[in-house]
């Protein structure tokens, strides 16, 4: 299965962190759904920014400020084309997915959600896409409704249909489940919501790193993701919104950058996107994020997805032969994530034993406790694959996991 131009060894070369030993074994990093590693180009861009361009943006009357501003705004343009947004003014930099959701909850929510309204989420949401809505509903006297899922970890679309009504003001659902890997049918979710007159927020934290996400094709009203899961730096995220909504929404935080004119008798706000970017933003990480987007585009989203799918299929089949291996989440459409249990063993123990041989996985509830309760479990072990992982690494996982599973099976 030769994939033209795709060379995983070459890709691995670009990720310095992968080339180390952990507990005397070569590191096998399979915790990519938590955060991905960063290519050297991103690391060097951070270094370069601080050694040559560091300056505050949008206001300085000097060369460095102009340079930093250009680079910062260039990333906004790149993100805009990455998402196929109609314009770069609709790209707002945040701290991450969590802040993006909170921003929408406290601006859109503050203005458009009223007593008796309903917000719909799903049973597989990350806590970030549950708690802000619970807080908003409590404040407004609105109600949170939850789309149930099947035992395989798929949304029950008929139940979703039943939940939608004229009371529904917002549907906020994740694109890809961080705990199960399920890819949700976002187009249908959005068009059904729109027919009911509701807006839709897409939590794309786990999708933008795996396949093309086109906000115009989806026709979503809001979309949020984190740079750090997409080969970029931590502490940075993106909120995309439809122009008319962003323009109508009140500001999120007050401060510098977000104002047009301040007077003690009243303040007028800046245009979008600046209205939502109060204070000095995360300049360095925004600038370095450009390199992460370039990395993804040089690899090519199709090649990246094909490689990851091959790994996921290989891992699911191979680990499935281990006695006592129980996969959690068997949706037909999945990406990157293999969540599982070993019969008779606590996920913590499995994770600890894997760590002892240099294999990094995540164990626990994956910030999705309601989902774990749905499956009557405390947590799972989760292996999640990125573009730089290899079949050999899955073989290493297989060998260790077989030995571990033998303890109880």
């Amino acid at each position, binding site marked *: 299965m030769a994939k033209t131009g795709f060379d995983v060894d070459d890709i691995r070369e670009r990720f310095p962190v992968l080339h180390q030993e952990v*507990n*005397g074994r070569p590191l096998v990093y399979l915790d990519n759904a938590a955060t991905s590693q960063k290519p050297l180009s991103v690391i060097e861009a951070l270094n370069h920014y601080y050694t040559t361009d560091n300056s505050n943006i949008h206001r300085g009357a000097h060369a460095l400020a102009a340079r930093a501003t250009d680079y910062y705004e260039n990333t906004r343009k790149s993100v805009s084309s990455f998402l196929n947004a109609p314009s770069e003014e609709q790209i707002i930099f945040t701290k991450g997915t969590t802040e993006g959701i909170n921003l929408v909850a406290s601006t859109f929510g503050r203005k458009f959600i009223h007593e008796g309204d309903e917000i719909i989420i799903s049973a597989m949401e990350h806590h970030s896409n549950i708690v802000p809505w619970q807080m908003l509903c409590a404040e407004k006297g609105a109600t949170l409704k939850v789309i149930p899922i099947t035992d395989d970890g798929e949304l029950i679309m008929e139940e979703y249909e039943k939940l939608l009504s004229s009371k529904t003001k917002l549907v906020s659902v994740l694109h890809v489940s961080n705990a199960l890997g399920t890819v949700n049918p976002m187009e249908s979710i959005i068009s059904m919501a729109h027919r009911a007159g509701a807006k839709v927020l897409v939590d794309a934290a786990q999708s933008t790193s795996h396949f093309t996400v086109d906000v115009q094709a989806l026709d979503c009203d809001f979309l949020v993701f984190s740079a750090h899961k997409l080969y970029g730096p931590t502490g940075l995220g993106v909120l995309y919104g439809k122009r008319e909504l962003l323009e109508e929404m009140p500001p999120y935080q007050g401060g510098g950058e977000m104002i047009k004119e301040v007077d003690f008798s009243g303040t007028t706000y800046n245009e979008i996107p600046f209205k939502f970017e109060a204070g000095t933003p995360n300049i360095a990480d925004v600038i370095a994020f450009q390199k992460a987007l370039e990395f993804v585009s040089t690899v090519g989203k199709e090649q990246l997805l094909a490689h990851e799918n091959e790994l996921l299929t290989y891992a699911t089949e191979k680990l499935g032969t281990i006695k006592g291996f129980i996969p959690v989440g068997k949706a037909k459409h999945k990406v990157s994530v293999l969540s599982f249990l070993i019969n008779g063993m*606590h996920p913590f123990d499995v994770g600890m*034993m894997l760590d*002892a041989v240099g294999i990094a996985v995540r164990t626990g509830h994956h910030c999705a406790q309601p989902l774990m309760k749905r499956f009557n479990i405390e947590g799972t072990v989760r292996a999640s694959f990125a573009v730089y992982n290899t079949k050999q690494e899955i073989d290493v996982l297989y060998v260790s996991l077989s030995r571990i599973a033998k303890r109880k099976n």
Partner: protein
Amino acid sequence: MNDIKSVQEEIIEEFSILGDDKESTIFYIMELGDKLPPFPEEEKKEDNIIKGCQSKVWLITKTEGDKVVYLADSNTDITKGLISLLIRVLSYRKADEILDSDLYFIDKIGMGSIIGSQRSNGLAAMIKQMKLYALAYQSKLNA
């Protein structure tokens, strides 16, 4: 010799044979947990859970003569292994002895780096609770 010090020396000796290999060390600790005497199911209740541990740990005591006896269990094997080490050192001893004990074997075998800082805090919480039970027993004796 079966005093607290010699039992600790025994444990240090056993772990030194395992050397630096983390995998065998972890497997070994879990095997120790497998040999822990059974814990009464009806005692697996909220009141007996030690606070401050990541995993669930249940601990109860009884007395045999003037000795304090510990029974414990956990929902994770690694923690069971850790408890079994503590029980091996502290169980079936007089309260005074338990209270005076210095559990230096934990540092000596490099437990901190084996289990990480979060679990080390859990381990400290277990020791504290075991000593508190011993103290309660001692106060009862002196009352």
